[in-house]
């Protein structure tokens, strides 16, 4: 196919801009020394850094001697279906009480879709017994912190619930899971996905799958989609209805 006409918008960037930016980058590069030698030298010449290094050494001793802390470190980083997971049989660590709770903004479907900064695909494969809860949860803006740009939908039937979470959070940020929690599947030839079963039971301090809750996660258009519900086949069918 003749596509030459599509190149006609290309142009050389302005020479002044190119030179100015190069100069700026060179000036920034000329700043501090990098590498291990420079790092050690800067530590030795700086009392505060020396103290920080001593503190890190103490932390290293704590990590290797205290079981829960060690468990956080001794784990395996796995890449399943293009998404990162930290797989461990040990204690994943509980969140402290002091941790700040981030609340979503609750909006109607139309408001939520307008507030969310990406266009997303909604499922078409849900049976009529499921009704979309019109209170859509949206995490946007500075207050949303690490959850920023996340949207959550919920469909309810008389007996079941299915939820969908879509986020632009980097799928390379690992979630901690148990070794038998993951199963890689394919939704179609271009969309690998992962089934995640169970989670950490903070009351009994064990990994558990007693609630039979399954999550199905995949990446599409740089967004991570995650469906959750009790029925694996249903989740897969819904996911396939979302695919482009």
């Amino acid at each position, binding site marked *: *196919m003749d596509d030459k006409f*599509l190149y006609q*918008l290309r142009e050389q960037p302005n020479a002044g801009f190119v030179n100015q930016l*190069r100069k700026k980058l060179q000036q920034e590069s000329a700043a501090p020394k990098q590498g291990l030698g420079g790092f050690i030298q800067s530590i030795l010449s700086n009392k505060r850094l020396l103290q920080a290094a001593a503190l890190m050494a103490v932390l290293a001793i704590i990590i290797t001697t205290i079981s829960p802390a060690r468990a956080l470190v001794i784990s395996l980083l796995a890449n399943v279906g293009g998404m990162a997971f930290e797989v461990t049989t040990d204690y994943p660590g509980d969140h402290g009480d002091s941790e700040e709770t981030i609340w979503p903004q609750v909006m109607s479907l139309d408001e939520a879709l307008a507030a969310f900064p990406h266009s997303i695909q909604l499922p078409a494969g849900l049976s009529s017994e499921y009704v979309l809860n019109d209170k859509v949860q949206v995490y946007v803006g500075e207050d949303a912190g690490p959850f920023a740009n996340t949207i959550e939908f919920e469909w309810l039937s008389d007996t079941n619930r299915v939820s969908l979470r879509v986020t632009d959070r980097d799928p390379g940020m690992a979630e901690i899971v148990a070794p038998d929690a993951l199963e890689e599947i394919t939704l179609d030839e*271009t969309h690998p996905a992962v089934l995640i079963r169970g989670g950490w039971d903070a009351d009994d301090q064990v990994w558990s799958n007693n609630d039979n809750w399954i999550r199905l996660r995949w990446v599409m258009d740089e967004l991570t989609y995650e469906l959750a519900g009790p029925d694996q086949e249903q989740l897969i069918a819904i996911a396939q209805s979302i695919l482009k």
Partner: protein
Amino acid sequence: MKNTPEILWALHSQVEPIDWDAVYTAELPRVYNFFLYKVGNREAAQDLTAITFERAWKLRSRYRAAVAALPTWLFGIARNVLREYLRQHRLNEQRLEPIVSREEVPSNFDVEKIVQQQQEKECLRKILLELADREQDLIALKYGAGLTNREIARITRLSESNVGSILHRTIQSIRTKWEKNHG
């Protein structure tokens, strides 16, 4: 399985220091044109290019050739920069600001021809800016940045065949609109 020369080459590429000045020279026009195709505005394309390279230069000690090829890494940063920009400038009208009106025209040129070229460019730019985000992205990576389908696939996390078929469909659609305007 990799054979010995491939393994040696992979090891060599790990220890061979990267000439970042050469990277700048080679990649800057590609990144700039990627932005130009996406936002259709020279000043914005320059700003976004500068932010991309400043960010890349700060992160370059963390770049690992074994994890991602340089264009994949650099255009990953560029696309994040663009996403932030588009979030801040939700009004798409800003992207329609014409470039051609400020293009310098040499005095000894055929004015009629220049005007025609400018009109064609403007028409194409409008067609591109009307594309859906993903299609526009792929066109900007292919024709603006001059990347191969394989490189685009790595950057966008689409399969190479998927990139090929989306591009094929998109080019056909652009061509139809283009010919309609020039028919």
